[in-house]
């Protein structure tokens, strides 16, 4: 058995690089803590829903509303006076859905007639349709049980309508996430190794001897990796659209332009990682460490409203992934144009500029 010498050598080597070791040991702990800080605790976190109670005099309509919001996960975002207003709020993305209780709701039940509740959900928002219909179904059941004694068994029917629908296939729902992961992790990891590799192989010494500037090095690498990543992007988007028949409701050109902006942002971020890392192992560790929280807190696992305010401001709103998903979903699933998602563009643009210029400033044109 010659396995022991290898074991001992490996352990020694692991301990000799304290920074990488710390990162690899501390990273999972930190991620778990972040996860707890983001989703743990007993806070009332819920997605906002608009309510239009057109039967304000009837007591049963208010009872139903009480039951609806007893369920965790949704909360009344606002009360409006008409169905049109409620639907408009869903279309604008202010709320994830609307619950409309028609006139004579209470009277219909009392008279033993069929009663209706209308639920309008934003089909383009992940999670929202499921959460809202589940809450309403549960509330209707409770109401029916409660009133059975007084008014007998009454059918209350949930009419479901969608905005940005009628329905979005699983493939379409996952396309923004898949594109986000591919355009984030792959280019960032690739470019994060680029300067460290030169440092490790010793070619950096020869490169910085040449009469070139930081701009030349950072800019040159960025352009090269952009070209490569563009091929990657067109490939994945092409497969989704051509092979799997994913529908893009907004202009395709806008979707591509928005994706390129995101790509530049992840590349600049990877570049910055490369500039501050001492070796490839560190660069890789750092990339993964940046990637995991943006996976947890960018609206992939849950609606952003379910994340604690602390982590939302700390991670969600500082993560390019969050803005990408929002903008990409809007263009692809809601049919927005790039001008409609100017806020997301601005956020990605500012981050790109910050990452890029930090990389230039922090690049050392000296050794040691």
């Amino acid at each position, binding site marked *: 058995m010659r396995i022991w010498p290898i074991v001992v050598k490996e352990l020694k080597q692991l301990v000799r690089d304290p920074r990488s070791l710390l990162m690899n040991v501390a990273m999972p702990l930190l991620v778990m803590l972040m996860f707890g800080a983001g989703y743990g605790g007993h806070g009332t976190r819920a997605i906002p829903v608009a309510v239009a109670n057109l039967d304000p005099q009837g007591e049963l309509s208010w009872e139903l509303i009480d039951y609806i919001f007893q369920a965790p996960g949704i909360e009344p975002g606002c009360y409006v006076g008409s169905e049109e207003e409620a639907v408009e709020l869903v279309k604008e993305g202010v709320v994830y859905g609307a619950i409309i209780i028609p006139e004579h709701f209470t009277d219909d039940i009392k008279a033993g007639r069929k009663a209706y509740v209308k639920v309008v959900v934003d089909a383009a928002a992940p999670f929202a349709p499921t959460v809202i219909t589940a809450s309403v179904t549960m509330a209707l059941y409770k109401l029916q049980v409660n009133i059975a004694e007084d008014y007998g068994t009454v059918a209350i029917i949930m009419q479901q309508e969608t905005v940005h629908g009628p329905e979005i296939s699983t493939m379409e729902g996952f396309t923004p996430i898949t594109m986000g992961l591919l355009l984030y992790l792959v280019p960032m990891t690739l470019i994060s190794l680029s300067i460290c590799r030169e440092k490790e192989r*010793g070619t*950096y010494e020869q490169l910085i001897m*040449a009469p070139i500037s930081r701009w030349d090095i950072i800019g040159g690498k960025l352009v090269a990796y952009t070209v490569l990543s563009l091929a990657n992007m067109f490939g994945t988007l092409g497969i989704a659209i051509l092979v799997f028949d994913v529908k893009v409701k907004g202009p395709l050109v806008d979707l591509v332009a928005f994706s390129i902006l995101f790509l530049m942002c992840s590349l600049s971020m990877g570049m910055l990682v490369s500039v501050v890392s001492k070796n490839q192992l560190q660069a890789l560790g750092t990339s993964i460490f940046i990637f995991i929280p943006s996976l947890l807190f960018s609206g992939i696992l849950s609606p952003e409203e379910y994340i604690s305010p602390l982590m939302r401001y700390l991670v969600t709103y500082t993560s390019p992934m969050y803005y990408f998903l929002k903008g990409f979903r809007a263009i692809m699933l809601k049919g927005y144009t790039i001008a409609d998602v100017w806020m997301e563009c601005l956020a990605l643009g500012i981050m790109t500029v910050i990452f890029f210029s930090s990389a230039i400033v922090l690049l050392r*044109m000296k*050794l040691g």
Partner: protein
Amino acid sequence: MKAIVLENVTKRFKDVVAVNNVSFEVEQGELFGLLGPNAAGKTTTIRMICGLLEPTSGTVEVFGYRQPRDRVQASKLIGYVPQHFSLYEDLTVYENMMFFASVYGVPYSVRRERIERLLDQFLLTEFRDRLAGQLSGGTKRRLALATALVHDPALVILDEPTSGIDPHLRFLFWRFFEELRDQGVTLLVTTHYMDEAEFCERLALMRAGRIIAQGAPRDIKRQALRGELIEVVVKTSRLPVEAIASLECVKDFRLMERGEGQATFVLLVDDAQRDLLRVLRGLERRGVEVLSIMPIYVSLEDAFLSLTGGLK
């Protein structure tokens, strides 16, 4: 204008002083050697000359450009060959040379021609489309040198260009260096091979971060021994100690060997060639019969060991 001027240069890494108050100058067109054992501070010194490291104190100038402040201007004049192969292993020989030609801004019209000429000069033509990573050690060294020359630098700095290569190639390399010197290029070469350093016109001898001697090889040897050595074999039944001691040009002497009717002395003089005849005449005038007399060849290694007090 001097090619390189170092004035009281010190480089400290945390608590280690790698280069300690070093000053020397290299004239244009000179083949200058920076000689010393491993860890003497040679690489740190040339990295400061290249502008890759900032001195902790003191000034470094290359053709009047202050390093590292004027790094960009100075680097156009410098061809640098680091100790370890630092070209792109995943590019071919030709691609490496082309890349560095373009980052150094060599005009497009002359690039190809110059690269072809260098490939030819350094016997690389047959490897031009081979990946650099697949070359043998010696070929990599030649490629590194050829690449350092693509922008026609006035100063070529080579860090241990001959360490770990076979004697044949070492000899070839020094031929290359002399050829370049003859073309008017200034060369700064570091080495820990004392025998090679004899090829240099001038040397600086480093040890533990300091320069312990500098000048032409002959001057350094003279400095080390405080003079030069002459070996005299005299025929005698009685040792001519007084006769030797009375010679004006002899600063010191030692009996090396005593045989039958003859004795061998080593004399320390200022200039062996000049004083050879004086010693001969002086001894004969004092009635000592000289069997043979000749200057002793002192190697740089001897000089170095003498300067540093042996292998302590």
